[in-house]
């Protein structure tokens, strides 16, 4: 069964350091999402890509976060510098959705970030 791959699974870093997360969506999935999930809360959308283009990054803290999906396949989410409040699970999801039918997301296992 096809999966969304994410790495690393766990990352511990000190505040002010840079950190990067990688996501490889299911082959053929045009839409890719990065969500942040703070412990005990639901996922909150950070950025959405359609192919290589950013569709929605309104909730992305652009002073420290950046995301790219250069060839419309895999994606990287970067935080620089990391702050204590960035400790969370970072979830990548993808879907085949292109405007018709239903948009059902497949999630990766997530990257757990702890900032000390």
């Amino acid at each position, binding site marked *: 069964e096809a999966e969304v791959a994410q790495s690393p699974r766990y990352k511990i870093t000190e505040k002010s350091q840079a950190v990067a997360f990688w996501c490889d969506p299911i082959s053929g999935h045009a839409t890719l999402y990065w969500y942040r999930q703070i412990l005990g809360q639901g*996922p909150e959308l950070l950025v*959405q890509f359609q192919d290589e283009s950013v569709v929605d990054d309104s909730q992305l803290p652009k002073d420290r976060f950046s995301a790219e999906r250069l060839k419309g396949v895999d994606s990287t989410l970067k935080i620089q510098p990391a702050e204590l409040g960035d400790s969370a699970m970072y*979830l990548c999801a993808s879907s085949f959705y292109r*405007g018709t039918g239903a948009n059902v997301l497949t999630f990766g296992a997530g990257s757990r970030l702890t900032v000390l």
Partner: protein
Amino acid sequence: SQQGEEDPQALSIQEGENATMNCSYKTSINNLQWYRQNSGRGLVHLILIRSNEREKHSGRLRVTLDTSKKSSSLLITASRAADTASYFCATDEGGNDYKLSFGAGTTVTVRA
């Protein structure tokens, strides 16, 4: 911002009992989905109900949707220990199918 709100926040039941959780949302939707998340893992899609549907079944899952009240319920019948997880509803905001917003979730614990 989160479109949906689940109720209750947490639920503890005995194995074999039914578990019911509710989701309320704010704007009009095209679809409502339910996802499950096991501890420390990603979310897994369970079931989707369209705005023109009132009830849907999948195995031991039953979902209802009341668009006039902007609410949905998820019923898990004959619960098992493996159903222990957090459950989230997800809605498209204002009919924008690309933008899915998740509620805060209901944590279900099934006791053996």
